[in-house]
């Protein structure tokens, strides 16, 4: 097991270097620079432009900038935003809990609904139930998040008035950020109604963000289940006279879970990508929105630092999934 973990960790180093290089060069490949965008329609003289580029250290050769950035990363210094002048790590730490909270809720919703839906579709294979579940999943998978989010807002918040439009909690509640997780902080605050408010604000963004992973998990569960249900040991279990619930829930599902867990792990990347749009629609103060704004402003420090941090999170989650996989299926370890 130790060797297995060590092997996985060793792979992280080249991945980390690769990501740092991509993060660094990607934003620089876009035309324009942060100084030019700062001044907008007002033209800056070439001298002034050069002076500001120099001040920000952007006039140095690329490789020096890269090694500088790499050296910073190794010492935990992610630089400061060119626009807001605040340290990138501070902003990330402040905004990241919001993204995690939303992503966790979304993945829980996706798993809780996706796995039973997939199992049901597999068990009732070929029936109208199977076809409708898979049809809905296909629609969900192909849904443009932006349009879907706005549609839900217009219907549930605008027309029915059931849910709030956007934000994390009603503005009438105001308390200091302790954990950064609104559900927890609202409980700690002791303010009546704060927790309920936080929950109502979570509903729509959670649904929107969960849509694609839910569809993927449902489809994956269905195909994994179909494969397992045809196995001999399932037939044996049935022949032993076990209840259908036990056959499916214990014998089949546990084995079908292996590819599903991998899929859930891979959804982390999908969630973070989906968070970019979901957060923008719902004014959710997380890292997705923060990154998009920074790309538009060519805030090099935020984009490269933020990408690095996000990549680190994804790498860690994937590592954990790998380990979990090894635990569920001992054959992997060898």
């Amino acid at each position, binding site marked *: 097991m130790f060797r297995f973990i060590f092997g996985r960790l060793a792979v992280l180093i080249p991945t980390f270097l690769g990501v740092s290089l991509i993060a660094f060069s990607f934003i620089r490949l*876009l*035309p*324009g*620079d942060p100084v*030019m*965008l*700062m*001044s*907008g*329609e*007002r*033209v*800056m003289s070439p001298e*002034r432009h050069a002076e*500001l580029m120099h*001040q*920000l250290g952007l006039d140095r050769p690329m490789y020096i900038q890269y090694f500088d950035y790499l050296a910073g990363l190794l010492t935990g210094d992610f630089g*400061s935003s*060119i*626009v*807001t*002048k*605040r340290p990138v790590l501070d*902003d990330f730490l*402040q*905004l990241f809990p919001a993204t995690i909270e939303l992503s966790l809720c979304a993945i829980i919703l996706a798993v809780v609904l996706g796995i039973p839906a997939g199992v049901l579709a597999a068990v009732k294979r070929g029936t109208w139930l199977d076809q409708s579940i898979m049809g809905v999943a296909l629609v969900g998978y192909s849904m443009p998040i932006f349009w879907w989010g*706005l549609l839900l*807002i217009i219907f549930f*918040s*605008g027309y029915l*008035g059931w849910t*709030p*439009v*956007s*934000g*994390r909690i009603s*503005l*009438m*509640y*105001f*308390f*200091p*950020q*302790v954990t950064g997780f609104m559900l927890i902080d609202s409980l*700690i*605050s*002791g*303010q*009546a109604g*704060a927790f309920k408010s936080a929950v109502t604000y979570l509903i729509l963004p959670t649904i929107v963000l969960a849509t694609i992973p839910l569809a993927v998990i449902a489809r994956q569960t269905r195909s994994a289940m179909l494969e397992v249900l045809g196995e001999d040991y399932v037939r044996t279990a049935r022949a032993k006279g076990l209840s259908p619930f036990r056959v499916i829930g214990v014998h089949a599902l546990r084995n079908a879970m292996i590819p599903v867990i991998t899929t859930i792990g891979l959804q982390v990347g999908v969630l973070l990508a989906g968070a970019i749009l979901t957060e*923008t*629609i*719902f*004014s959710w*103060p*997380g890292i997705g*929105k*923060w990154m998009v*704004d920074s790309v538009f402003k*060519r805030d090099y420090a935020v984009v490269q630092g933020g990408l690095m941090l996000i990549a680190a999170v994804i790498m860690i989650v994937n590592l954990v999934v790998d380990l979990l996989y090894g635990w569920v299926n001992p054959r992997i370890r060898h």
Partner: protein
Amino acid sequence: MKKLTTLLAATALASLMGTAAWSKTFVYCSEASPEGFDPGLYTGGQTFDAAAHTVYNRLVEFKRGTTEIEPALAESWDISADGKEYTFKLRKGVKFQTTEYFTPSRELNADDVIFSFERQYKEDNAWNKYVPGASWEYFSGMGLPDVIDKIEKIDDLTVKITLKRPEAPLLANLGMPFISIVSKEYADKLQADGKMELMNQQPLGTGPFTFVAYQPDAAIRYKANPDYWGGKQAIDDLVFAITTDAAVRAQKLKAGECHLMSYPNAADVAELKADPNLNISEQAGLNVAYLAYNTLVAPFDKVEVRKALNMAVNKQAIVDAVFQGAATVAKNPIPPTMWSYNDAVEDDKYDPEAAKKMLEDAGVSGLKMKIWAMPVARPYMLNARRAAELMQADLAKIGVEVEIVSYEWAEYLKLSSDKDRDGAVMLGWTGDNGDPDNFLDTLLGCDAVGGNNRAQWCDKEFDDLMTKAKETADVAERTKLYEEAQVIFKREAPWNTIDHSLAVVPMSKKVSGFVQSPLGDFVFEGVDIAE
């Protein structure tokens, strides 16, 4: 254990700070997060709304709803006969805000004013580089380092600014957000504590609202400043709910989650107007969209060619298609709300037949040209591509073949300044300070060729008027000079002036006292809400 203590402390703090009771709170759905809270460092309108118009004041300010200068922290001022010395008498008894992070021990005085200026241009000032990459972009962009010779304290409540040359737009510049007056006492304290960066995170000024907290990308909270020299505000709390998507802002306003919103989508305006709970305030924006020919390149160096092209374009059709009526056709380079606007100027009449003939008379046939269309929506031009297509169709009718080109925004801004640029550029401008100089000289002066002057147009007669107007303090006299300049502009036609857009501000019917600013600022001093 330590965690538990933190939790308990936080809970206690929450019960102290937390006001679950909904006091009279005004919620504004704003379009973007502020870049920071020190207005001197930034150029974004959302930053000025969040910092300059709430927390801070300036020596002089724009009278609400106008671009006229009125006294603010300076009660009065004298300008010397040669126009080079400005002596400001400060208001007595102005208190800085008392906040959780700082309690001032003295009132506003000349030291604060001098500090507020000097930190923005004196490189030996410890605050000149207090955050990485501090560039004081507006201060230098408005050319103040070249204009200001020195700034001195005459006595505690008198400050004298001496200029290197007469500069009539100076007062208008001093009303702009970037030159907000900060507290030197607070700055000294931060410096002594080694926490200078807090100046940009925990602002402290003399304005109507006191900063309470900023939750990045979510909300900014203020409370009414009880010591405000202009009197305490009718509302208790002010909240900016940051909502970047315009369609979502509109939904929030309709759902009653905010009282007022900025920048609705043109497509949403009709629906907002139809809502019985909302009022819509509309005002001609202080902006212009234009198509600038490159007057250095043949055949666009000929006035007749430029005129003919102007006459071939149906501008009303563009305004109707792009703005659905929320704009007016422009004939002058400055908007009609600006003083010195010359209404007597006649626009080039839309007349394709005459245009065609004019082009033939100028000896131009089979003309092929490029029109540059911006890749982004700007307040003065919501859809440049659509506008360019309409122009393309119009110009085809007089035998001119148009190719529409576009570049990524930053690239567009850069390449369009180039003197050798091929083609006519669509662009625009939003006024900074309501002074005609800010449009006419900035965009059409000889000094701006290769820069803001996208027509690369340098006309001696026009430029002399600009210089003269800058040196004249008398507004009536300056008005005459600018009116004359607009006549020359129309005669020479370096641009086709396209439109001035309307600024639309939807708000709840409960809101009273909000006055739309022609400068596009959102100022909440004086607003109230019905319970």
